[in-house]
């Protein structure tokens, strides 16, 4: 389906690539590139391997069933801390408000400061957990005073509705579904001022060298998708709605939360280090030192495709 029409000038067979991607609006650029045939026109035969959320996509990469994955930075940081050799090729989405804390109104949580003693649902090992920690720190709440309940995003709406948890830390569009379902029975708390998340294109270390030119083709297609989203937002929303099975109203409600740009910035490095420190302090990984994440950022392909999109200090 995604083979599409190859560039007539290139008689070589297309490079095959399995891209693990969550069915989320975060990966809008991937969905647009696929739908518009940008991968095919770059000479890539991309198979999209769909997952519920980014961590599962990364797991597929780590398991070797995918060549490239799109996921948030938190699972990447944790995987690197566990000694996995990964390379981030680019950030394809950033947001400060996409992940929120949703609290049941009847729990009495009118501020995150009132979380002590509450049960908070979170997908462990995802940026939802890091977000929750940041929110707790922001409101000077001891982590140990909160009961974390590990659950998948798909379990959260029911858990909230049933009162199995008092609050959940979750991203859109799951957050939107919970709000739609519970209406006034739920309150939202973002951490806009000190929280920042990204969605990145990740591959295993060595991929760029072994699969010469494929990373550049992939990124070139995503850069084209970026331009399409900027110039044709309505069409892009329809593509994402089809890819994520969300209705246009839901897409419209969360569209403004995302910044879809292909880039690789120093701020990602800072964010990864921050999360690494948090993970070490929280005992999520069995190590005490922060690795050099610079070696986990592979800027060469993006520099070749769009030099000014790389703002990494050398």
């Amino acid at each position, binding site marked *: 389906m995604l083979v599409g029409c190859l560039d007539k000038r290139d008689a070589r067979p297309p490079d095959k690539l399995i891209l693990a991607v969550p069915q989320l609006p975060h990966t809008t650029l991937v969905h647009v590139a696929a739908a518009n045939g940008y991968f095919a026109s770059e000479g890539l035969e991309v198979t999209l391997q769909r997952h519920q959320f980014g961590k599962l996509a990364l797991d597929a990469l780590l398991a070797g069933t995918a060549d490239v994955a799109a996921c948030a930075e938190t699972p990447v940081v944790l995987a690197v801390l566990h000694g996995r050799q990964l390379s981030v090729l680019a950030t394809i989405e950033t947001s400060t408000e996409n992940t929120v804390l949703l609290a049941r109104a009847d729990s009495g949580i009118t501020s995150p400061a009132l979380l002590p003693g509450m049960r908070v649902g979170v997908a462990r090992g995802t940026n939802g957990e890091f977000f929750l920690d*940041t929110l707790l720190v*922001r409101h000077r709440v001891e982590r140990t005073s909160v009961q974390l309940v590990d659950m998948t995003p798909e379990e959260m709406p029911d858990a909230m509705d049933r009162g199995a948890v008092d609050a959940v830390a979750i991203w859109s569009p799951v957050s939107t579904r919970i709000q739609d379902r519970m209406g006034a029975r739920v309150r939202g708390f973002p951490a806009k001022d*000190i929280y920042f998340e990204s969605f990145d294109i990740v591959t295993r270390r060595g991929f760029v060298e072994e699969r010469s030119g494929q990373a550049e083709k992939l990124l070139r297609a995503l850069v084209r998708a970026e331009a399409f989203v900027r110039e044709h937002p309505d069409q892009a929303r329809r593509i994402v709605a089809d890819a994520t099975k969300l209705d246009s109203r839901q897409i419209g409600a969360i569209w403004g939360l995302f910044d879809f740009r292909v880039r690789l*910035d*120093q*701020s990602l490095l*800072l*964010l990864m280090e*921050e999360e690494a420190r948090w993970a070490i302090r929280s005992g999520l990984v069995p190590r005490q030192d922060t690795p050099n994440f610079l070696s986990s950022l592979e800027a060469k392909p993006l520099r070749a495709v769009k030099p*000014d999109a790389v703002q990494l200090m050398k």
Partner: protein
Amino acid sequence: MLLRTRFRVSAVISVAAVALLAGLVGGSLLALERASATEDLARELQHQILEQMIVRDEYILHREARARMQWETKRARLVELLASASSTFQDAGERETLGEMTADFRRGNVLFGEIIGLSDDSGIGERGRTPQAELRARITSQSLRLSHDLYGSATRLAATSSMRAGASQRRTLLLVITLVGTVLALVTANVLQASWLLKRRVDRLQAGAERVSSGDLNHRIAIAGSDELAELGRTFDTMTARLQQTYSKLEASNRELEAFSYSVSHDLRAPLRHMSGFVDLLQQHAPADLDAQGKHYLQVISDAATKMGVLIDDLLAFSRMGRTEMSRGSVSFQRLVEDVVQELIPEATGREVVWEIGSLPDVTGDEPMLRQVWRNLIGNALKFSASRVPARISVGAGPGGSGEIQLYVRDNGVGFDMKYAKKLFKVFQRLHASDEFEGTGVGLATVQRIVERHGGRVWVEATLDGGATFWFSLPVREEAT
């Protein structure tokens, strides 16, 4: 179109093109200036953001009031720069980046305020992982991240501004090159057009004038067009037509005049012969008592009648040379001159004459007429060298050139003053008294008429008592092959 109108139009087009391009170059220079100013502003933003990052880090490390004060100064400066940038950057993408920068800047300021507040409120160091210390670390990290984003955005702005300045510079350079090229092309085109037009016209005028001056009064220049030179050509043609009419009239008058003089000369011969005959009869039958005085009178009448007869013969010959149809053929001057010399030798009986006859060419012409030329010239040389012992007479060909051959007859006779040279070839003009040298004053006029009818010219070089050299030329086309 008139030439001056054509030149005026060309000049106006050139000036308009130059003005247009000058305007474009001016506009491009303004754009370049704006782009440079924008780039400077972006660079200044970069610089100030970097310095604010440094003083912020200094404050976070040591919490010195000086660093906080400098951070405030940088913040104020960045507020100014961002305000200036919002009115300077017009590109949609750049304005979007600027909007992000402003948002990041404000959030960064809020976070720094929190860092200050945390320091003051807690008064703690980095003791363990208290919520206070943890929050401070998180806020600091976030502040660092925002600073990097801010710096990155400023770098992108600087890069796009730099690209625009570069593009503007290249455009300006291209326009300048185009301007110079256009001016050169227009000037060259104008010059070429003018020279082509002038050459075409002037060449035609010159060729026409040459043909007319060579005697072809039927030729017309007939330049098409409406410019000044075409008008000049038409005026020239009109002038030639009038000249032709006048010439025709003159020719007719000349013919009439010559016919008249021929008739008169011819008709005078009969009564003159009667006069001469009857004077002879009277001398033979004069009464014996006719005294010497009477006989002298009769002799004077007889001599005058004879002289008049010669004069009339010369005039008739002169007239014939102008009227007779020319019969062209190959003529050997060598033979002709030798014949003439042989004919004249008897007239030099008793005289010591040295003849020097050089190599002479063959020519094409009317032999009887050309014979008359040599006879008159050599005869004159023999006559005017009568007092020289020996008389030396040279006949030869000159160097020639310029499409003509030149021939001469030189003598060592009495010569003459060159100031009278112009009179020499006119009818009845004589430089010496008739009692000194015989002659009618028609011979050289006849020579000139014959030579000119052959398309040649005559001239003379002489000094008083130093001899004379009479030259005549014939066109090369007259030369036999």
